[in-house]
């Protein structure tokens, strides 16, 4: 649920804005104070916040807002535009060098998730038809090379570990190996290091000089606090970063570090990492993330995910049913299986506009409870599945016995079904091409 808390706060502020006709300077100030607090609590660096607020204020208190017919919309637009500007204009792909192999060097603090990210990036590039070689140049952390080897096996990619304890030599040998074995990408995992450790920072510079990477990517934990700026700046000054990868975005972090780092280094965020599985990596879309911050939901990402997972024909049928209110428990089960394929439910639902994290809490479903739900639904008669309204107390008891689940769970499922029916309707509206009416617009 990326940024959900921040979205809620901003939505709250903008709801207050809506209540009034035209905005005075005082209103804008009050609104922006809320924005400022929300951003600070989201761990956005305070200097970045100040600059951001000033820019928005400058634009907002000018003619634009005060003379605009819908002041609330105008402020949202300005905040959104400025956020999007900070986050970068568009998604940026990895650079490919003219002569193979393209070399990517990954660096970062300890525990940012470099090794996992190297694996994920390898899997991602492999899916695109590339032939990556993973390189374990972390000679310090015990078993770091072993970790990469295990990951390499999982995703079926070769891993070069080299001999000896010299990361610079290992990196250079890996490039040589890639040439010999027709690998067109070399991903270099480096040891985690502190940005103030001169010796280790010099070592990174040595690696850079030795292999001349086309991308130097800083891996940053999305939960990082105010210090994110200092860290990113130090790495950037030493190495000249070309991009950032933000990890652990599947936590409930408000992720303000993304904003700060982007603003301070000017480097594009290229990927975001979620989860520990090897497919948990996505190309970063700045515009979408800016939308998500504003609580407009990440409609684009959601639609893409739905398209990729649900067969088009099936989806059409489903939409029809939803619109005609003929959505049944049978469809619900099919739907749940499909949604599961899209990824964690909270993640999917958090992309729907107007969804708040509080509403989502009841929806945290894991694999096991999915099995239980199946058991419950399968213990219903066909008639019950199609018209759940007829399920009275004695039917509930029978279903509970039949599925071996407590009766509360049957109740919960029926409630969830009603809830998701409502949600599907919201989705259906998006599908029809219209943007759902946002509460504050």
């Amino acid at each position: 649920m990326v940024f959900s808390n921040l979205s809620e706060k901003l939505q709250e502020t903008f709801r207050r804005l809506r209540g009034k006709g035209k905005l005075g300077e005082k209103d804008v100030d009050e609104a922006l104070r809320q924005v400022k607090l929300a951003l600070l609590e989201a761990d956005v660096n305070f200097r970045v916040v100040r600059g951001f607020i000033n820019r928005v204020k400058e634009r907002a208190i000018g003619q634009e807002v005060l003379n605009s017919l819908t002041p609330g919309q105008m402020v949202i637009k300005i905040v959104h535009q400025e956020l999007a500007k900070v986050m970068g204009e568009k998604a940026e792909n990895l650079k490919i060098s003219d002569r193979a192999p393209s070399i990517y060097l990954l660096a970062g603090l300890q525990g940012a998730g470099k090794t996992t990210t190297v694996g994920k990036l390898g899997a991602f590039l492999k899916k695109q038809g590339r032939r990556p070689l993973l390189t374990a140049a972390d000679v310090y952390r015990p078993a770091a090379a072993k970790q990469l080897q295990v990951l390499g096996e999982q995703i079926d990619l070769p891993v070069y570990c080299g001999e000896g304890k010299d990361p610079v030599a290992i990196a250079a040998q890996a490039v040589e190996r890639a040439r010999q074995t027709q690998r067109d990408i070399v991903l270099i995992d480096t040891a985690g290091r502190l940005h103030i450790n001169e010796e280790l920072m010099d070592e990174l510079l040595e690696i850079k000089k030795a292999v001349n990477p086309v991308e130097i990517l800083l891996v940053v934990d999305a939960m990082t606090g105010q210090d994110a700026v200092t860290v990113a700046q130090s790495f950037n000054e030493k190495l000249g970063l070309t991009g950032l990868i933000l990890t652990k975005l599947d936590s409930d972090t408000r992720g303000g570090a993304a904003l700060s780092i982007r603003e301070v280094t000017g480097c594009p965020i290229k990927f975001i990492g979620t989860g520990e599985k090897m497919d948990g990596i996505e190309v970063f879309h700045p515009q979408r993330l800016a939308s998500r911050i504003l609580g407009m939901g990440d409609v684009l990402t959601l639609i893409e995910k739905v398209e990729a997972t649900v067969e088009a024909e099936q989806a059409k049928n489903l939409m029809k049913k939803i619109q005609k209110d003929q959505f049944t428990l049978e469809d619900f089960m099919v739907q749940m299986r499909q949604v599961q394929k899209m990824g964690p439910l909270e993640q999917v639902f958090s992309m729907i506009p107007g969804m708040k994290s509080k509403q989502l809490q009841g929806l945290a479903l894991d694999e096991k409870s999915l099995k239980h739900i199946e058991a419950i639904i399968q213990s219903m008669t066909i008639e019950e599945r199609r018209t759940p309204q007829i399920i009275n107390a004695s039917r509930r008891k029978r279903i509970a016995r039949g599925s071996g689940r407590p009766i509360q769970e049957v109740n919960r499922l029926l409630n969830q079904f009603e809830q998701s029916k409502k949600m599907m309707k919201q989705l259906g509206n998006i599908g029809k091409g219209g943007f759902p009416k946002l509460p504050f617009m």
Partner: protein
Amino acid sequence: MTDGFVSRLKASLTKTRQRFLAPLEEAMLFHKKISPEFYEELEEILIASDVGYKTTSLLLDKLKEKVKTEKTDQINEIKGYLREIMTALLSVLSPPDLDTDLPLALLVVGVNGVGKTTSIAKLAEYYKGKDKSCLLVAGDTFRAAAIDQLRVWGQRLGIDLIHHQEGADPGAVAFDGISAANARKVDVAIFDTAGRLHTKVNLMTELEKVHRVVSQNLGERRLLNLLVLDATTGQNALSQARAFHEAVGIDGIILTKLDGTAKGGIVLAIAAELGLPIVWLGIGEQSEDLRRFDPDEFVKALFA
């Protein structure tokens, strides 16, 4: 705010060991008298140290109250007051007994990448240095090579490791670990766990199970649940602490990676908002760099 202030801050951000004190002193020098503008700047300084908005407000309220009762407008007094308030805030929390009343079981938990395994190695070395017998239990059966990482540490320190295969049930490992610790009568059994985001329901349930297995088989042993937090983490550390506390009950916090430029202001937020005691500070990669947390010392360092 003047341009001078901004550029000064920029410059100080590039300093390697920028602490809380330098900007505070500069603000005092700049404002000369206690004023709303000074408070505003102090607010930013605190927030920049990851103290968080809520706790910053709390600290400022207390400070303003103090200034009022002392009837002073002398800006030089601020440092002393602030130190007093922060020390008081941190001192009310009583840390658990980690040294006497053995045998102990330590369950070490936290999100991914905070330094659990390294902290465990340091803890083991600490107890070994005090001539206590130790046992390590490799409860991270999920991350690739996590068991190997702990095995390397065990070999370096000459401490036995209880482990299963990768992918094994962590509850079963925990059971074997606690059984072995009791059978061998070791003083301190340290349980590693897989890093898990506090938002993952399944993984938190798994942790609750591990905790249950250990706590139900303790015998004479005391169990302490230690949460490892990364000092570079921002306000999310609160969210982490809350979730882990709810799941297993946290007895103490190990704050790692204080050797960077992060100022660890989150310590204050955790004390103020959650009331959980910090017990260890990790300030480097050497084993002696794990230090017992002392409120006086910590605040002193903040002001030094």
